[in-house]
């Protein structure tokens, strides 16, 4: 690994738009949690998908994970909200090993936007309400409307998801993630399945949301220009290993 400089993150912008605050016990108003991985590895069938990766992401930072196909970028991201189990090493969330956090609580705090929207059958409103409903909370129509307005889809609540375009579906999936009021956002190639115009719109939407909410964000992208537009810092992976981490331009030039 060439460097482990922790660059200054993008300055958070105060939240001022619609959305949700975390509700219930333990739902702290503080935004932007800290990730730290220590010698994190995941081995499947003898293949080291993630190999001894140690990196820290301070609160409110946007970190881009770049590298060629098969580098372990998505596998690394999935370890951060424990969709997969590390074979060795650990992930610290706000300084504590995340194995001490109930997976449901961890995933509520660490939202994820995937490459494909994977909307559930039903209406847009049903999708937005899914996360809070898992905790026994029902969103009001106004709360759903505010979330949809934030992603640029006002008056979409009653629509059936089958009629949405790829870009609209990804916006709904972002609103659905925001409905859990997460403190961090993991984005796995969120625009790679979209056309250029939709991709730029989603990119700007994600960037606006993480800034206004001061959320920590780790974004996997193969698009260097996108990484440069969105992140102040990047980590370069190859064959599961961390090759370089540091200021975005230095890392992209190194790749």
């Amino acid at each position: 690994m060439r460097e482990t400089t922790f660059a200054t993150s993008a300055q958070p912008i105060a939240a001022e738009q619609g959305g949700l605050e975390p509700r219930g016990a333990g739902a702290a108003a503080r935004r932007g949690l800290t990730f730290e991985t220590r010698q994190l590895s995941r081995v499947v069938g003898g293949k080291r998908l993630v190999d001894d990766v140690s990196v820290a992401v301070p609160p409110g930072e946007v970190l881009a994970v770049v590298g060629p196909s098969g580098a372990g970028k998505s596998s690394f991201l999935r370890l951060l909200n424990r969709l997969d189990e590390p074979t060795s090493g650990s992930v610290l969330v706000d300084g504590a090993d995340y194995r001490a956090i109930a997976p449901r609580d961890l995933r509520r705090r660490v939202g994820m936007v995937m490459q494909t929207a994977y909307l559930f059958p039903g209406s847009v409103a049903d999708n937005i309400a899914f996360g809070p409903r898992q905790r026994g909370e029902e969103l009001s129509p106004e709360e759903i409307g505010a979330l949809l307005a934030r992603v640029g889809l006002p008056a979409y609540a009653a629509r059936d998801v089958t009629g949405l375009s790829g870009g609209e579906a990804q916006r709904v999936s972002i609103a659905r993630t925001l409905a859990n009021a997460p403190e961090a956002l993991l984005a796995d190639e969120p625009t790679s399945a979209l056309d250029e115009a939709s991709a730029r719109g989603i990119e700007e939407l994600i960037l606006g949301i993480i800034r206004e909410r001061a959320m920590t964000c780790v974004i996997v992208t193969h698009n260097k220009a996108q990484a440069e537009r969105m992140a102040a810092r990047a980590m370069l992976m190859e064959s599961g290993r961390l090759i370089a981490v540091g200021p975005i331009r230095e890392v992209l030039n190194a790749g």
Partner: protein
Amino acid sequence: MPADLLNAVSADVMLGLAQAAGAIVLCAAVVVLCGWFSVHVEREAAVSIARGLVQMVTVGMVLAALLKGVLLIGALILLAMMLAAAFTAARRLQGMAGAVPLCFCAIAAGSGVVIAAMLATGTLKSDIAVLVPVGSMIIANAMNACAQAAERFRADVTGHVGEVETGLALGADPAAAVAPHVRSAVYASLLPRLDMLKSLGLVWIPGVMAGMMVSGASPVYAGIYQFVIVAMILAASGITGLIVVLLMRGRAFSPAAQLILRRAEAARS
């Protein structure tokens, strides 16, 4: 010696073998017909026909020997049938560790509960000659329900990994994340049995009713009893389908609520 052997084979058995030969000829003709349309099931059909005939002759001989046995012997025969059914159903779950005990638990629970209830209410006599054939019908249908539910659940979950993991990523517990797939798998396993109940008497008159009428029972009573049997088959299938899917659901996730029932992930970047 040959004369003794010939004497031992009664006339009705010879008749049965002749009828079986006729049935095999018809099946062979269908296999040849399939071959003309490039559907090649020759080997599988030959093995199935040979196995079916040998198994049924063997069962007949065992039943003849045990006809006057006690309930315990009948229970042991049914238990052996459940075990064989579990091995058969587990073939649909190739590659899944512990599939046989999983299927056995589901089939034994579904068919066992129903057979026990029928014995307790007097719907089913404990005579081996009645208990084993009726019990086998229930076990066979439980086996089919088990295989259908398990196969459907696995196919649905592995085919919708993205949706399931999206649910998990949004804070759903595993049961909620796969709830639609549990419902569809149990429903899929029940559908043939529901259709069977709907078509009872209209499309087919099952063997139990036909046998009772041949042996002199009232046709109305025979019809009602047949309904009871098919309803019990539905109940056994429902219990079996539900249990196998719930057991599979438990194995589909790690203790940390990670989906582990999926295809190889080595290709993921």
